[in-house]
């Protein structure tokens, strides 16, 4: 894979609703030296790996766990309410949040999906201190590309961290990261935090030409910042060693020691291909070792295991299901509910966008109508000055001119209340109320946000099923081995005095079974752990969602009341202009 892969992906970030990623994207783009370095260190790192599943690295002592995520949560809350919508449809609202909706600070600790749920509050209490992350200063850099002499270009961002958590080396520091590093962070989190709802990463995207455009760079910067805020706000991920390493490690990230130590062995597909014949011929063990068994098949490069699990997965479709626990059945039902919710959210999100765009259309028409009235007013006024002896004509034209101008002005002002139009109004006066369409889309942004999280939820739930599949596959292997051993033993009893070869085989099978036993139990533990995380995250998500939606419903009403009250005033004033003239005339 070429080094710039991460930055050259097709334009798709704006369609975040379809953020279900391709499986193939999950391979971290590695090349040449970097990869060698990592594979050699990976073995050592894999023990860290295990512990980090808890989100608490082994060397982290109790005092290290003091920092709290309050600050991070608060900033996430601001983000939610401030409505920096990093996604599609709301293109015009891509301005830095400037507190448009008044009292909209979401209470700390209850701000949407990133906020802690009651179940994790004990952990929250154990961690104190703040963590604030910002992404700034995008700079274009060059590096040697695939072809000799051709320089590849990429954007480098400054990731600045301010924290008083004691486990950080410094309190205020910045590192430079590129998009590829964010991809690596996400992929590592996915393999180390199975079962958690990992906030969705900004899409790789865009065509070559678009990447250099300032709007795109700003959009991506905001998306990356938002992503880091979401990670920081997560009660487990925000405290994880992986996240800390991403913020702290030396540049370049992918070859820094702090980072590579955390990175498990990344078996590539090609390595798996190389292993496969040996596995089939029996010269290499086809039995997954316990540490592999506790990992997602995708990350082990064990193709034989992948095939087995795939076969089992397919077979389970039409054959007898292994008995599922009630907890598992509940979670599978929960997944169906989440899928239903996803459908409704997607619809609501679309309708919300349509609503905002129809508000915008309506506002723009008022602007056009107002302009045509004002123009006619000017025209009538000009006529009034010219017609000489036709004084009645002139007098009438003056009246019409005044009325057209008054109503036209009101319509144009109404449009300014509704939309940015030529995006002039909002920027010129920083303290002015943003147009109603922008406020509305901000108020409705939880719909999009929640929809954006659903794929992560489904993925996390799927991870549990994958883990269970590993357990079932290993259990099935075990049964097969037991049968094989039994038949060998039975055969052996028929031959008096035994058969050396058979005894060796039985011995081999027993060794395999011992390994299998360990692997199965590791896989079972992993499954339980993932399920536990699923439960915990579902509770947290539900609470966060309720909070976000309640806020949304309040905000939308507030925004609309404010907007229409201003409109009412504006038109009342316009109408009273007529009254004044009528009084004068009468």
């Amino acid at each position, binding site marked *: 894979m070429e080094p710039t892969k991460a930055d050259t992906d097709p334009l798709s970030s704006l369609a975040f609703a379809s953020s279900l990623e391709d499986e193939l994207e999950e391979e971290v783009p590695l090349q040449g030296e970097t990869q060698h370095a990592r594979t050699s260190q990976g073995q050592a790192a894999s023990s860290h790996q295990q512990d980090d599943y808890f989100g608490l690295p082994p060397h982290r002592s109790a005092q290290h766990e003091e920092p709290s995520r309050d600050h991070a949560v608060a900033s996430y809350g601001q983000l939610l309410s401030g409505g920096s919508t990093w996604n599609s449809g709301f293109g015009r609202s891509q301005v830095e949040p400037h507190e448009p909706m008044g009292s909209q600070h979401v209470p700390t600790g209850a701000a949407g999906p990133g906020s802690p749920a009651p179940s994790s509050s004990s952990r929250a209490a154990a961690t104190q201190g703040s963590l604030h992350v910002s992404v700034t200063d995008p700079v274009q850099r060059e590096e040697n590309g695939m072809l000799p002499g051709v320089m590849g270009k990429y954007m480098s961002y400054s990731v600045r961290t301010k924290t008083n958590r004691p486990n950080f080396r410094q309190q205020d520091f910045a590192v430079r990261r590129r998009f590829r590093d964010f991809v690596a962070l996400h992929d590592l989190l996915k393999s180390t935090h199975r079962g958690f709802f990992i906030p969705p990463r900004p899409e790789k995207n865009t065509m070559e030409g678009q990447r250099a455009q300032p709007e795109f760079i700003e959009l991506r910067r905001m998306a990356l910042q938002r992503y880091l805020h979401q990670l920081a706000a997560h009660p487990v991920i925000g405290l994880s060693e992986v996240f800390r390493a991403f913020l702290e490690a030396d540049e370049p990230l992918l070859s820094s020691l702090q980072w590579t130590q955390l990175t498990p062995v990344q078996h590539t597909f090609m390595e798996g291909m190389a292993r496969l014949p040996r596995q089939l011929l029996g010269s290499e063990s086809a039995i997954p070792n316990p540490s592999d068994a506790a990992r997602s098949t995708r990350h082990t490069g064990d193709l034989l295991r992948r095939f087995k699990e795939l076969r089992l997965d397919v077979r389970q479709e039409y054959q007898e299901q292994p008995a599922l626990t009630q907890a598992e059945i509940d979670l599978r039902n929960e997944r169906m509910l989440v899928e*239903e*919710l996803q459908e*409704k*959210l997607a*619809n*609501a999100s679309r*309708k*919300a966008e*349509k*609503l905002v*765009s*129809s*508000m915008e*259309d*309506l506002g723009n*028409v*008022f602007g*056009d*109508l107002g302009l*045509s*009235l004002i123009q*006619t007013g000017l*025209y*009538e006024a000009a*006529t009034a000055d*010219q*017609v*000489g*002896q*036709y004084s*009645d*004509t002139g007098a*009438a*034209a003056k*009246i*019409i001119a005044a*009325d*057209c101008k*008054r*109503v036209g002005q*009101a319509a144009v002002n*109404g449009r300014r209340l509704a939309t940015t139009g030529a995006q002039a109004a909002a920027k010129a006066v920083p303290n002015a109320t943003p147009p109603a369409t922008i406020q509305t889309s901000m108020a409705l942004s939880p719909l999009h946000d929640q929809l954006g999280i659903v794929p992560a939820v489904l993925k996390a739930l799927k991870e549990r099923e994958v883990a269970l599949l590993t357990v079932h596959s290993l259990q099935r292997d075990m049964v097969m081995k037991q049968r094989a051993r039994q038949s060998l033993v039975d055969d052996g009893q028929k031959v008096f005095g035994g058969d050396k070869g058979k005894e060796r085989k039985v011995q081999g099978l027993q060794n395999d079974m011992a390994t299998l036993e360990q692997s199965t139990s590791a896989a079972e533990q992993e499954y339980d752990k993932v399920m536990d995380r699923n439960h915990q995250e579902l509770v947290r998500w*539900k609470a966060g*969602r*309720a909070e976000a*939606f309640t806020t949304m*419903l*309040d905000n*939308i*009403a507030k925004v*609309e*009341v404010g907007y*229409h*009250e201003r*409109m*009412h005033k504006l*038109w009342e004033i*316009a109408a009273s202009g*007529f009254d004044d003239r009528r009084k004068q*005339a009468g």
Partner: protein
Amino acid sequence: MNSNPFLSETESSGFPNSQGQASSSGQHEEPPPPYESVVMSTAGIPNAGRSAPQEDAHPSSFDIQVRDPIKHGESTISAYVSYKVCTKTSLHQYRQRQTEVLRRFKDFAWLRDQLQEQNRGIVIPPLPEKSVVQKYQMTNEFIAQRQRALTIFLNRVAAHPALQHSQHLQNFLEMDENSWSIEMARGTQEAARRKPGAFQFLRDFGQSTANMINGKTLDEEEDPDYLKVRDSIVQLETHMAEIHRQAARLVKRQLEHGVSLEEFAGSMAALGKCEKQPPLSMQFERLAEWAGKLAKLSQEQADALSLSFEEPLKEAVRNVRSAKSVTADRSNALAMLQQAKLDLDAKRTRHSKLRGSAGIREDRIAENEREVKEAQARQEAAKVAYETICRRMNEELSRFQQQRAQETSQLLYLFAKSQAQLANDNARMWAQLLPTANGAAQ
């Protein structure tokens, strides 16, 4: 105009927002009159304000309603719609106080042609457009719109000081269907007889030909102030058409906004069913319920706008167009006068030539003299026609402008009022969803 049934319902159903109620009752003190009354009230008092005194003696003595459109004929080509024209009048020349006749669009058009023919220089109230496409579709909406426009047309004619005593109008309003069709046939024949070939030619090609040949000289003979008024009217049409176009877009957008609100309401209701926790699902339900009402409000506003803003604006455009055609008539008349003068000069030159040259037969000279006399008569007639138009227009333009100012003013005033009302209704309805209101409702 804004007779939203559910609005009064919300008021009477005692919602906790007393403030909103108070302000709304303030709003309802002055219900905006319907579109017909907007246009017709001013048409009914044609010279409100400063106006020529002799016309004050003729307030409108008519109340005319066009109603009950009935479709006739099966095939699309021959199908037509008849309307019942009901008239109440106090004019003595009418045999009855109240009449009721059946007329179709064609009859209206004929009436207007006759009025125009006999009242050059007067801005004849406009008829709704003949729309070939829409005619064949004959949607109820189209018919209703046309019915309203025809009502306005008749009332405007009946209110016009120069037109209300027209025999054609009386015939149109009084005659039973048979007599009317005979009258129409007779009138058409007469008109055909009245128009000699040359004039027909000029009429048909009208101003454009005349202006092309000697446009400059034409304008040079006109009063420069009049020319300014004329030019202003010509350009005014473009301006008014633009306003109307935007108004039509506004109606469409308002309607679409209603639709998207409705869909939004639906999606919120569905989401509420997914979010089963009791307070949240109830809040979603409330939002869906009110968004649905807002959608209805938006759609009703679109209808109201269409009736009280867009259609009158269209009427205003047509009115300006009528005025424009009067200025064209005047130019035509002037062109004909000039043409007649040239013709007369040519004939006279030829006549003197004939006289001067020897050996010309007497009968040819006599013939020539006759031609000169005819040309002179035509020139006289053309002069009278032109001067009549000028004289009429001097009054008519001022009447036209005053009426236009009053109507435009009223239209814009009602528009501003209805926008204020709509915004207020919206604000009040959204206020029902505010957390405080929510708490009170629960």
